[in-house]
């Protein structure tokens, strides 16, 4: 009776872990499940873990399937979920504010481990390495609804789209601003400044009958005469 119950608890734990690991390459998933299962068996035999509460405590020490799966994804270089959540939050903020600081591209950095300085030596006898490709991102998963990696992945790619859209809009806005500024500068020069030197000498010459403008007389009247000139 009790043994049945504890077996159920273990089976349930392993089943849920397997569901959550569905985003891992199959061999890595099998490897991890085999290890966890062996761990549980080892503990039960070698530490005489028999009662239901002992088994539950054993599972508790292992960590929830969610925690173990998150560690597995992180170590596999597939979607550090915490990082993706942060990137997603950044993208959402960016969508709300007009000119955001561009958040880091959600897809790029795998955890530092995976990109580490060591060569990913692939001894061929080690079967579970064969299907392993650390930088591919999560394989498409048709699996159960609560497998962690597909969801954040999708979120982050929509986040990326939003960021790109906002960035394009910002660039267009800045360009338009530059154009408008340039236009105002040129038109402002035509209206305000250009006529003054052109009109003023004419009028000076007309009024003075072509007399050579002497320095002290020609210059002071200039502004007075130049200003009404365009309005006439």
């Amino acid at each position: 009776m009790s043994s049945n119950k504890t077996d159920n608890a273990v089976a349930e734990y392993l089943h849920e872990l397997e569901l959550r690991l569905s985003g891992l390459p199959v061999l890595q998933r099998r490897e991890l499940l085999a290890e966890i299962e062996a761990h549980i068996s080892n503990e039960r035999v070698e530490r005489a873990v028999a009662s239901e509460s002992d088994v539950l405590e054993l599972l508790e020490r292992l960590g929830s399937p969610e925690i173990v799966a998150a560690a597995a994804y992180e170590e596999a270089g597939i979607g550090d979920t915490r990082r993706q959540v942060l990137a997603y939050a950044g993208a959402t903020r960016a969508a709300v504010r007009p000119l955001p600081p561009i958040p880091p591209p959600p897809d790029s950095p795998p955890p530092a481990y995976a990109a580490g300085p060591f060569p990913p030596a692939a001894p061929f006898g080690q079967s579970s390495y064969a299907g392993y490709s650390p930088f591919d991102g999560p394989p498409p998963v048709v699996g159960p609804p609560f497998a962690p990696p597909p969801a954040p992945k999708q979120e982050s790619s929509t986040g990326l789209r939003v960021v790109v859209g906002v960035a394009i809009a910002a660039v267009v806005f800045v360009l338009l601003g530059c154009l408008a500024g340039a236009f105002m500068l040129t038109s402002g020069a035509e209206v305000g400044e250009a006529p003054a030197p052109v009109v003023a000498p004419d009028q000076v010459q007309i009024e003075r009958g072509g007399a050579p403008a002497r320095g002290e007389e020609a210059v002071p009247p200039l502004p007075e005469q130049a200003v009404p000139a365009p309005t006439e």
Partner: protein
Amino acid sequence: MADVAQLSTSLRRGTLEFCVLAMVEHEDRYGTEIVRRFGEERNLAASEGTIYPLLSRLRRVGWLDSKWSESPSGPPRRYYALTDTGRSALEHFRSEWVSFRQTVDRLVGTGGA
């Protein structure tokens, strides 16, 4: 802006794996043995199940080797052994760690007497 609760996680990241390498430096050990050893260390205490993905990665990068072997009492055990590249990675970490620790001690004022 690391959350205070994240501190030990952050400290563990990047160092725990070398503790694992050191643990199998002189003799091969099987998974449960390694996990139990970590369970005894308060400061390193993490969910035991997260050690296995770590072992898996160390094996994939070639720092650890593993082989299954029959157990007298229970299910087969998977024994882990340090490879040559794992050994040099561990040596490299040791020298890096000493100077890293000294720098942090100096800057943070934890050098002590």
